[in-house]
């Protein structure tokens, strides 16, 4: 059950109509250089050996594919497996990408990096690899997010990164990307931008996908070893879309595998307070790419809302936008409330505290698992651990009790 070979993006950095390079002229040369460097360096044995060796010995790959027996029994339907990206060094999938990009930047002769961060996971993963590789890191983070994620800010600083508070606009992830891009334009000669998700101008969505695709590759092999077949469903949460893209990519040609991306419905997709760009957004251009966006009628970008800071972005990567229009991936959404309840469910039944982001994938997977027979199986990408969210949850539920 193979579809024709999937070869995206095309030579212009497009995924069908999506993607592209919508950036100021000053960045064009850096983007072209990055594309050339990626095409010539990343595939060499020398690069792959160093990358693979660090993924194994430093990040801790491969991560387990864990059969969640109690969760499956409790749900009473399909078998549920968890791809344990939460067990990576720094606690999420983000480091797969930051490690790859930092190694690439170093080989391009750039010893400084700039990055944006929302929840702080990408910032921590960037600061970590910069400490490891003796590089300078400047991380832009919205003032609102700094308030929400104080511990991650301190972690980044301990690791030697400079964290810059962004007070422009909505003071969240989208504005942190704006500031990081402005910083990059200003420091273009010696600085590489480590984009944290499958977003931005080409070649970033491709590079991030490729570095993250280790998730899907391992999952496929691990699942085959245990079940001697492919899973029926693969479910991942979507903010910008990097863990989902890394998980889905190796399965795209396997039509028998249903791929499901779960967006954040926040307080509900009818309320206007959500981050469901694919479910409720319109096509447009932001941060260098043509993709689905939350925007007003006259093209101003709107704020996203989710209890999970990592899903709080008003767009979804161009490749996801394409895969939705092609009908290859199904995109749905779950609310803050559903995600919180899935958070508790996994914590109590399996003793695994998931990130609020990943809890969105769990919530949807549990819904469909209950409707399926026991011979079907679902893999959830457990993209990160939930330690960072404990305070948010305590506050959210403390408030709820008083209402």
């Amino acid at each position, binding site marked *: 059950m193979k579809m024709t070979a999937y070869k995206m993006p095309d030579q212009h950095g497009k995924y069908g109509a999506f993607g*592209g390079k*919508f*950036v*100021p*002229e000053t960045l064009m040369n850096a983007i072209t250089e990055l594309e050339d460097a990626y095409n010539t360096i990343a595939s060499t044995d020398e690069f792959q050996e160093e990358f693979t060796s660090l993924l194994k010995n430093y990040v801790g790959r491969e991560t387990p594919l864990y059969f969640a027996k109690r969760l499956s029994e409790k749900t009473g339907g399909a078998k549920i497996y968890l791809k344990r990206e939460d067990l990576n060094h720094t606690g999420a999938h983000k480091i797969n990408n930051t490690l790859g990009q930092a190694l690439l930047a170093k080989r391009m002769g750039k010893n400084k990096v700039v990055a944006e961060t929302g929840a702080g996971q990408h910032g921590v993963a960037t600061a970590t690899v910069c400490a490891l590789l003796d590089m300078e890191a400047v991380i832009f983070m919205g003032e609102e997010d700094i308030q929400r994620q104080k511990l991650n800010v301190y972690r980044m600083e301990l690791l030697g990164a400079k964290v810059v508070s962004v007070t422009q606009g909505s003071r969240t992830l989208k504005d942190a990307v704006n500031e990081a891009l*402005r910083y990059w*334009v200003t420091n273009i000669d010696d600085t590489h931008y480590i984009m944290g998700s499958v977003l931005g101008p080409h070649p970033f969505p491709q590079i991030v996908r490729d570095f993250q695709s280790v998730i899907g590759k391992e999952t496929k092999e691990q699942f085959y070893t245990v079940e001697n077949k492919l899973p029926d469903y693969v479910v991942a949460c979507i903010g910008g879309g990097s863990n989902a893209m890394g998980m889905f990519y190796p399965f795209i040609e396997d039509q028998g595998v249903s791929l499901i991306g779960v967006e954040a419905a926040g307080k509900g997709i009818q309320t206007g307070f959500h981050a469901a760009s694919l479910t409720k957004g319109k096509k447009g*251009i932001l941060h260098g790419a043509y993709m689905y966006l939350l925007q007003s009628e*006259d093209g101003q970008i709107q704020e996203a809302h989710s209890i999970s800071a990592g899903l709080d972005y008003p767009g979804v990567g161009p490749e996801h936008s394409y895969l939705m229009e092609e009908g290859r991936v199904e995109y749905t959404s779950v609310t803050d409330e559903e995600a919180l309840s899935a958070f508790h469910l996994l914590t109590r039944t399996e003793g695994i505290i998931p990130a609020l982001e990943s809890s969105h994938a769990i919530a949807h997977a549990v819904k469909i698992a209950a409707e399926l027979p026991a011979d079907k199986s679902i893999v959830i990408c457990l993209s990160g651990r939930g330690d960072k969210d404990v305070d948010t949850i305590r506050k959210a539920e403390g408030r709820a009790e008083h209402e």
Partner: protein
Amino acid sequence: MNKLTERFHRLKENGEKAFVAYIMGGDGGMERLKEDIFSLQASGADVIEVGVPFSDPVADGPVIQDAGLRALEAGTTLSTILETLRVIKAQVRVPLILMTYINPVLQYGVDKFALDSENAGVSGCIFPDLPLEEEGLVTGALSKTDISVIRLASLTSPEERLKRLAEDSEGFIYAVTVKGVTGERAELNAAELEAKISKLKTYTNTPVLAGFGISTPSLAKKVLPFCDGVIVGSKIVNAFHQGKREEVDELIKGIKGLALTVK
């Protein structure tokens, strides 16, 4: 030949350099947009560049970001700007150009944008996030009008790229003087800029103007010998916001006075 090209021909005949004034459309409301345009025209600006506010202006520094936010809060849209320009069209002698990020144009509809801009008397457009590679998005619709697509060239553009930028260029080429965003600066690297602009000029007769960071006659004096004019933005946006029209008048007269004597 559109109004913009005509203006450059006349400047060339007179041996003058161009002064392009940037303002943020809708900062202070639509009445102020009209007043700003008339006051710049009276002071002797050669071209007026009207910025369309956008929520995420990645090429702009703090002054223009703030002006954009004020304009958005005042309810400004691409549509209200075009409507205002259409209303005052008969009184505007100076060529008008629009500076807009591409997403508001996409949502407005590229064909409608081209038509309505032409009806509003717009003779050129600058899209700061639409490089050569993506220009096709608008050129089909705009080529049916008399509106020029003004390209940007940067200090980081390699020679082969400068050549491609120069070929089929329209209106003028906007040479970005710094690696960075818009905003006033104390200094700029004139030698590096001169090398790029001289290179560009070997490939085209289209005028090349310098912008980003130019805010004083002394900075303008450094670049005018090797380019065809300057674009001043943040300085003017700030002065108008603070109600200091006379400062803008002095600046334009100062730079235009300089321009006449530079050969």
